C-alpha cells in the first residue's frame, strides 16, 4: 500500500463563471487527520463535494487508492470506501438512531432480495451481524442510550455524533467530515475531537475534515491545508502553517 491515499492534481471547479476551486493540488497521507481551513466561500465544502462525487470537477484529477478518476458518483464513492458527514447533519430524521446506523451498513449487504424477502438463513445471519456491528458503533461513540430515539428529536450535538456513527458504519477508508463541530460548545468540541481521533486509531481511517475553530484544528490535525478564494495558500504541519505569514494574512488575521 502506498503512503498516499488521496491525491488531487490541478482540480478546478466553477459555478456559472464564479471560480470556487482554482487549480488545487495536494496529497493526503494514509492514516492522517487532514484539516481544510479557510474563510467562508474558500471552496472547502465544494472540495468535499467533488471528493465524494456530488460535484464534478471541471478539470484536474483525483487519485484515490492509486485509482485516478475525473468523475465519481456518490454511490460508487461510498462503495470504494469514501464516507462522509454533512455540514447540516443530513440524517434520516424520522428514523431511530439504530436505523440510521443500520442504513449506513447497506453497502455491505451480500444477500439477495429474495433471501431478504423470505428471511432465509443467510439473510437472518446477516441481519444479526449488522445489528451487532451497529450496536458496537453506538457503544463506541457513547450513543447506546439514544439507540431507539427518533433522530429529529435529538439535540444538534448528538445528531452530529449520529452522523459520524452512520458514516463509520459503512467502514470507510477515507472519511470526509464537513464541520463536525459546528454549533458545539468547547466541551462538546473536545469530546467530538477525541471521538474522531479514536475512530481514526481504531478503524485505521484517514480523515479529511473542515473546521473553523483554529484551536481545535491545531490540536487535532496532523496536516493542514489552507484555502483562500479556491486557491491553496498553505499546506503543511499545523505549527508550520500557523507561522506562515501568507496564511496569517489570508485567514488567521494580522497580529495587531
Amino acid at each position: 500500500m502506498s503512503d498516499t491515499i488521496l491525491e488531487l492534481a490541478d482540480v478546478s471547479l466553477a459555478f456559472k463563471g464564479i471560480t470556487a476551486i482554482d487549480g488545487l493540488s495536494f496529497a493526503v497521507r494514509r492514516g492522517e487527520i487532514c484539516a481544510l481551513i479557510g474563510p467562508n466561500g474558500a471552496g472547502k465544502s465544494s472540495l468535499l463535494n467533488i471528493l465524494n462525487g456530488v460535484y464534478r470537477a471541471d478539470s484536474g484529477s483525483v487519485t484515490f487508492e492509486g485509482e485516478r478518476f475525473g468523475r465519481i458518483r456518490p454511490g460508487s464513492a461510498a462503495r470504494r470506501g469514501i464516507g462522509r458527514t454533512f455540514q447540516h447533519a443530513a440524517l434520516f430524521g424520522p428514523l431511530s438512531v439504530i436505523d440510521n446506523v443500520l442504513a449506513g451498513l447497506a453497502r455491505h449487504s451480500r444477500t439477495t432480495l429474495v433471501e431478504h424477502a423470505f428471511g432465509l438463513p443467510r439473510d437472518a445471519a446477516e441481519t444479526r451481524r449488522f445489528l451487532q456491528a451497529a450496536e458496537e458503533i453506538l457503544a463506541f461513540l457513547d450513543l447506546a442510550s439514544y439507540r431507539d430515539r427518533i433522530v429529529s428529536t435529538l439535540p444538534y450535538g448528538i445528531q452530529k455524533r449520529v452522523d459520524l456513527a452512520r458514516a463509520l458504519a459503512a467502514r470507510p477508508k477515507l472519511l470526509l467530515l464537513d464541520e463536525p463541530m459546528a454549533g458545539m460548545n468547547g466541551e462538546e468540541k473536545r469530546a467530538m475531537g477525541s471521538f474522531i481521533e479514536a475512530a481514526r486509531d481504531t478503524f485505521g481511517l484517514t480523515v479529511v475534515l473542515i473546521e473553523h475553530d483554529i484551536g481545535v484544528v491545531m490540536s487535532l490535525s496532523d496536516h493542514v491545508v489552507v484555502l483562500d478564494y479556491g486557491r491553496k495558500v498553505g499546506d503543511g504541519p499545523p505549527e508550520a502553517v500557523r507561522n506562515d505569514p501568507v496564511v496569517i494574512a489570508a485567514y488567521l488575521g494580522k497580529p495587531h
Partner: protein
Amino acid sequence: MSFFLETLAGGLLAGVMYALVAIGFVLIYKASGVFNYAQGAMVLCAALTFVTLTERDLPFWLAGLVTLAIMVTLAVAVERVLLRPLVNRSQMTLFMATLGLSYVIEGIAQLLMGASVHELDLGIPDLPVALGPIQLSRFDLVAAASAGALVIALSLFFERTRIGVALRAVADDPQAALSIGIRLPVLWATVWAVAGFVALVAGLLWGARQGVQFSLTFVVLKALPVLIIGGFTSIAGAIVGGLIVGAADALAEIYLGPLLGGSVSTWFAYLLAVAFLLVRPAGLFGERAIERV
C-alpha cells in the same frame, strides 16, 4: 339493523379493495416522493396481460407468473429509462414523467392486446354467504381476504426489514442515502416491481368484478380520496382510509341516495376527502411536515 350491518360490511369489504389500489401509490410515494399517476395504467396492463394469456388457454398459475415477470421487467425498464436520468429533479418533474408513462403503458397494452372488454372469471362463485344475521358476497369475502393478506405482508416487509429501513432513508434524503452507499437504482426497481405485483392483484380482483377494460385505469380515482384520508406515506393509513371510504360510500348510497336522487357514491368519497384536507391535511397517518422558521 341487520340491513345497516349488511351495508356496512359490504362497504368495508369494498374498502379493502380500494386500499389495495392505494397501497400501490403509497409504496412508490414512500420511496421517491412521487405520486405515480401510472399506477392505474399498471393495473390495466397487468389485468389485460393476464386475461389475454388465460384466453390463450394458459393455466392460471402460469399466466400469473408470466404477467408478474412482465410487470417486473416493466419496473426495471421504468427505473432505467425514466427515473435514473431524473434523479434529484423536482417532484413535479417526476409526476409529469409518470403522467406520460401512463399513456405509454395504456397505449402499448391496447395496441398489443386490443381495446375490447374481456370477461375474467377467477373461479370464485359470487354467491351469498350467511354470516349470522347478515348475508355477504362470497367473492367480496375472498377478494377482501386476499387483499388484506397482501396488505399485511407488505407492511411487515417494509416496516420490519432492512429494505424498509433503506426505503425510508431514501425517501427522507436521497443525497445522503447515496453518500452512504445505498443502491438507489436497485431500491427503486424493487419498489416499482412490488407496485407492479400489487397492480396485478388489484387488476385481477377489480377485473373479475367489473370486466377487464380500459375503465380499470379509473380505479385510480377511487384511490385518491383513500390516500388523502389515510395519508400518502402510510400503508396502515391506506388500509384505514380504504375502509372509511368503502363504508362511507356504501352507507351514503343507501341512506343519502334516495334523498338526493341517487349516484351519491360517485362523489361522496371526494367530499369526505375535502373535509379531511381542511382538518388534517397530512391525513390520518401521514407524516406532518414540521418546518423550522
